Each structure stands twice: as structure tokens, then as C-alpha cells.
């Protein structure tokens, strides 16, 4: 039966710390990625830039991938959001982003462009290369960033095409983006990929390498921490288990009790850590689903490790074999 002993409290405490640590780190990675986007003019580090001298309006038709975005850059300031599959939106300071049902010409602008808007009958308008767009919202962060100088449009500017057109493919998965890029190039051979068009944090301060290293080290650390503690736990429980064997209780029952014990302990620590996190964290970058996923992962790893130790022990020992 499950009774709360001192050792269980230590178990819960350790896993509470580890889970909280994991949640903190997930929050950090979310924020870091947001910063990278903010400094890179709304693009993720895996975006691809295509350029062509021969732009046709329907160059993309029936791209099967979900979850990607296509931008068309007119110049440094104005940018058209051609496609937005996957509910992406830039960080908004006020107003609202485009919705699928918009029929009129709308724009979302950065903080610094507000002085270029005109107010007519309570609505704000901005002129992009001579065409008027209604401003529905302002995007940005609480601090100055590169997106303060950008305007996103939802409908194309009807005007003579320039010398060349720049298209950007962006999304959350690099594999997806590569597939889409290849599809576009296959259907339109005049497009070519521009290498090395990153800006912002991704390019300065050697961040990508250190960041990846950090993430890798961190997950390894969590794994090792769990292994170390489970080994300690196992070594303590071993004595108890042998006594129970000698008393005649079946191996299966003893093992089941052990597993149940750690499942209960980890679940309790998981619930406690979620409560702790929700009380203290105002910004809620990570969702409840993510937290539950992390907890299940911890459970799974702990059970596997204990299983491995027990199996190794079984195959080694000769004294009290069944």
C-alpha cells in the first residue's frame, strides 16, 4: 500500500526540483526562439530566401505541406503575407492580426511606422507604394526590435513588378521548408535559393552553436540525474525487497509494488510542480499539455531504468533465485 514515508518525501522533492527545472528550461527555449524571430525580422533561423526575375502570380499551387508561411518582400519595409497555413501571427502589441475572412486590403505595422499613418473617420490607413491599406494592428515587443520598421500586408500591391522579386519560405520545421522549396523550384526553374540571408541574433554572437549545445547538455543532465537518483533508490529498496522475498512474498508482487511506488511519487511531484509553476509563472509560455508530456516522459524513463536495474540484478544473482 502506498504510505508516505520520509524516503518518499525525498523522492518527491527531487523529482519536483527536476520537473520545475525542466519547465523553466522549456520556458527559456520558447523565449529564446521568440527573441531570435524578433531580431531576424519575423523569420525563424531555418527560413529560406528565393529570388527570381520572372515572377508569376500563381507560382505556388497545391502545396501539400501544412504549417508554413510565404512572404513576398517588396522592399525593406513592406512585405506581403502570401500564404499562412498554420495560424502563425507575429507578436502583437495592439489591434488584431489578419484573419482568413478578410477581403479588404489590410496591414499590420511596427511601432515606428505609426507616424506614417493617416487617420480617416476613426480608422488608420497607410500608403504602400501608392496603394492604401487599412491598419488593423501594431506588432512588436515591449522593447525595440527589428520588426518595428516592418509592415505586413494581406493583399498584393498592384503595380509594375520590379527587377527581381524576393520570396521567403518560413515555418517551424526545417524538413518541411526544404520540401516546399524543392517543390517551388521544380515548378518554377527561374527561382533560385539565396544562401546565408540570416540576420539578427542567429548571426551575431555565435548563438546557434552555443544554444544547441546548451539544449543538448541540459537534456543529458536531466537524464543522468534521473539515472543517479533511481540507482540510489534501487540500492536502498534492494534490501527491503530481499527481506520480502525471504518472507515468501512473490517476486512479481514485490516488483509491481516498486513500480507503483515510483509512479505514485512521480505523479505527485508532477502535480505539485504544475501547481507551483502556474502560481508563479505569469507568462505561461508552456502549455499544460507540454507539462503533462514532460511528466509522462519522466515516468517512462524512471520505469525503464528501474526495470533495467532489476533485470540486471536478476541475471546476476545466484543466491535467492526462484
Amino acid at each position: 500500500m502506498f504510505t508516505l514515508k520520509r524516503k518518499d518525501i525525498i523522492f518527491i522533492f527531487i523529482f519536483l526540483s527536476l520537473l520545475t527545472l525542466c519547465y523553466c528550461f522549456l520556458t527559456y527555449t520558447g523565449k529564446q526562439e521568440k527573441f531570435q524571430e524578433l531580431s531576424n525580422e519575423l523569420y525563424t533561423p531555418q527560413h529560406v530566401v528565393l529570388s527570381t526575375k520572372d515572377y508569376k502570380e500563381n507560382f505556388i499551387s497545391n502545396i501539400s505541406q501544412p504549417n508554413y508561411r510565404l512572404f513576398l518582400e517588396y522592399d525593406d519595409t513592406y512585405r506581403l503575407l502570401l500564404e499562412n497555413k498554420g495560424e502563425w501571427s507575429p507578436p502583437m502589441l495592439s489591434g488584431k492580426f489578419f484573419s482568413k475572412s478578410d477581403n479588404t486590403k489590410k496591414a499590420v505595422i511596427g511601432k515606428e511606422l505609426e507616424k506614417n499613418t493617416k487617420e480617416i473617420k476613426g480608422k488608420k490607413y497607410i500608403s504602400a507604394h501608392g496603394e492604401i491599406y487599412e491598419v488593423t494592428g501594431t506588432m512588436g515587443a515591449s522593447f525595440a526590435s527589428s520588426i518595428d520598421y516592418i509592415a505586413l500586408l494581406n493583399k498584393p500591391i498592384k503595380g509594375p513588378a520590379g527587377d527581381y522579386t524576393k520570396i521567403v519560405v518560413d515555418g517551424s520545421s526545417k524538413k518541411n521548408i526544404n520540401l516546399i522549396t524543392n517543390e517551388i523550384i521544380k515548378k518554377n526553374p527561374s527561382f533560385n535559393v539565396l544562401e546565408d540571408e540570416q540576420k539578427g541574433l542567429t548571426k551575431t554572437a555565435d548563438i546557434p552553436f552555443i544554444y544547441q549545445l546548451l539544449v543538448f547538455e541540459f537534456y543529458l543532465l536531466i537524464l543522468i540525474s534521473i539515472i543517479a537518483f533511481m540507482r540510489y533508490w534501487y540500492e536502498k529498496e534492494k534490501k527491503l525487497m530481499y527481506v520480502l522475498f525471504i518472507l515468501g512474498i512473490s517476486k512479481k508482487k514485490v516488483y509491481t509494488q516498486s513500480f507503483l511506488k515510483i509512479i505514485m511519487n512521480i505523479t505527485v511531484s508532477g502535480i505539485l510542480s504544475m501547481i507551483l509553476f502556474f502560481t508563479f509563472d505569469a507568462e505561461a509560455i508552456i502549455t499544460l499539455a507540454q507539462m503533462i508530456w514532460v511528466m509522462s516522459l519522466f515516468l517512462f524513463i524512471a520505469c525503464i531504468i528501474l526495470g533495467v536495474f532489476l533485470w540486471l540484478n536478476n541475471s546476476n544473482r545466484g543466491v535467492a533465485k526462484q
Partner: protein
Amino acid sequence: MKVRELIYYFKKHKFLSLSIYFHLTLFFVILGTFVAFKGELEYESTSLQKIYEGKAIYQLLDGFYDGDKYAEFVSEPDYLVRLKSYYKQLNNTSDFNYLAMFNQFIYLKDKGLPEELIEGYEQGSKKNQVQVGDDIFTTVKSFQMNKQAMNYFGLQVENGRLWNDEDFKDNSVMPVLLGSSYQNLYKVGDETTINYYNKPLTVKIIGFLKENSKVYFNSNTEFYLNKYVILPYRDYGIPASKTDEVFQQASYFAVANGYLVTENNALQNKLMMQRVEAISKNTSFAGYSFIGLSPHFQKYRGLMTVVQENRTLIQSIFVSTFILNLIVIITILLLQQKRRLSSFAIHYINGATINRLIYMLWLEISTILLAAYLTNFLVLYEILKLGDMETQLLILVLCFAMSIIICILLARKLLSNSMTDYINIEGGV
């Protein structure tokens, strides 16, 4: 005897000791990585601050954009002397920094240049090539600057060296710097031929700029020089021939258009404008105009604030990771050592003194800590080459502190209670 006991201890708890050792190593490595990360961000933010904070940048243009006015000016007999004098005074004044920069393309001898280096690549252009004798020359991206620009933006080299004062004097061979994308194509000391403003020149590569070196150019605070061939704006003497004169004319007109950097207050701005007026009058170079604070100049703030915000973020995650990890590690170490108390009690019965026991305790903890520290040093300092000596010293101090704290916590137990308490029961919890 102590060493034998130590070895016996490790043999008995092989797996656990190994796990703790790995755990500690990773902990130290993560600490080192965090410190290195923060250091990089801090370095980036300070260099951006040095360049942009509190400064005003103006673009200076010559007034001869009108074809007729230009032709009239160059028809005067001493125009080149006046032009040179104008530039020399601008370059040497102490009232402001004069950054002469431009991205005039050059023809480079092509022995297999990748597409991304050619002029116009970003606009979708293909290679623009000319054949001269046996060689093919392609237009590539090139950037020219004076010494002040190189110093102002704090440019650094990965291989070779930067320009010195001698390099800005007229010589038969022009020393050039290359962006990091050229690393695979040339090495320091190579010589090749270029065609710059219609003049063939022999150039020698003296260095490669560090990857992602950037300058401020054309309202862009992130003008990266990776794919550029960088030429110095040199001082030339009296032209030897008509073609030489045309070359010098192009070159000096290029440097007469540059960027003026001064402190962003009314007094300095006024001084700067007065100085430029004085120079213009002095050298009888009448045509110039300013473009005031380039429109998107404040963009630098964007990158710098994000870097600073990132630094704050790193700091907070670092602190929370450090504290939580420390708690977990110390708890595990403590628990493990508590189990040892019963064996210590046995030693006590056999005649060991309490001091000896405490020493053995400390030895067990610090051996693992030291082994973990050394592995961390190897990984971080030698293999990954992150962080510096200072970080490693800090980690060493932490190492000692941890061993002393755990030792004290347990020693207290040993000292306060009588040994018989520990003989029978299994330690730990």
C-alpha cells in the same frame, strides 16, 4: 589504508559513483556553457553600444551629381589637387570621425568562384564575365573603406592581419582583406589580379575578417562583410598618365562621399557642420550636402535591445538552473554519504579517530568532485574551446565549496551523536 578503503568504497558502489560522476561533470559543463553564452552576448552588446550609442551619423555627398556641373569641375586644371586636399582634411580632422565607405564592385580573376560572391547575386543576377588574355574576370562584391572606418567598427581578423598605416600609401601591390566566405578559395599571402575603376591592379591578401563582421552602410546596421573583397582607400601621388588621372578621379570622388560620425548633441553637430564648411572653403571644394540622420538609423537599437534582453533571460535561466541542480546534486551526495555512516561506525569500533573518519568522508566526496571537475575542464576548455580560465577557476572554487558544505553537514552528525547510533541501522533515509 585510506586509499584502500576508498577503492573498496568505489568498487562497492560502482554504478552510483559513476552516475554521480557523470552528473557532476555535466553540471559543471552546463555552468561553463552558460557563462560563455552570457559572455558572448555581453561582448556583442558592448561593441554595438560603442559604435552607436549617443552618436549621430550623417551622410556627406559631393554636390556634383549634375553631369554638367561635374564636367565643369573636372575641366579646371587643379581640380584633383583640391579634391585630394578636401579628402585629406576630412580624414584628419578631430571634430568628427570620417568614415569613407562604398561598395563599388570589382572584376576578380575567376578560378572557380561560387555564385554567392558575385555582384548582384541577391538580385538574381548571373555571373558577369570578361575575358582578358587567358584569364576570365568576374564582377564580385567589393567594399572599400578608409582606416577610420576599419577602426571605428572594431573589425577583427581570423587569420592574417588588418591594415596598418603603410598599407594606405600608394604601392604597386594593394593589400586587401577578404570576408570569411573566401577562406576556402585563398590563403594569406596569395596574390591575384583585379580590375578596379578600370585599372588593373595586383592585390595581396593580408587577412580574412572574422565571420559575420559587420559595418553600418546604406541605412543598414547589419551590413555583413562575409562575401566581400575589402580594399583600402589609398592616398595617391601625382597621376602619371591620363588613365591614371581618370582612375584617381573616380577614387577620390568616391571618398568625398562618406559618413560623418559625431556625438549626438547640438554643440557637436554644430561644430561638425562648421568644420565641413571650413574645409570646403579652405580647399575650394564648393559642392557638398548632408543627408541628416539616416532614416532607419535607430535600427541598431533593435538588435542591441534584443541582445540585452537575451542576456537578462540567460541570466535568469542560469540562476534557476544552477540553484535547482545544486539542490538535486547535494541531496543525492548527502543521501549517499549518509549510508556510509554505518561503515564509519565499524571503523570507529576498530580504533579509528573521529578526525580520521571525517577525513575519509571528505576524501570520498572530493574524489568524485575532482574527477568531475577535471573531465569538465577537458571537455569545455580543450574540446569545445568555450569559456576562459576565469570560468574554470570559478567552477573549481564551487567544487571545493560543495565538498566542504557536504562534509560539514555530515561531520556535524558524526560529531554530535554517539557512534552506536549508526552501527545497527542502515544510513540514508
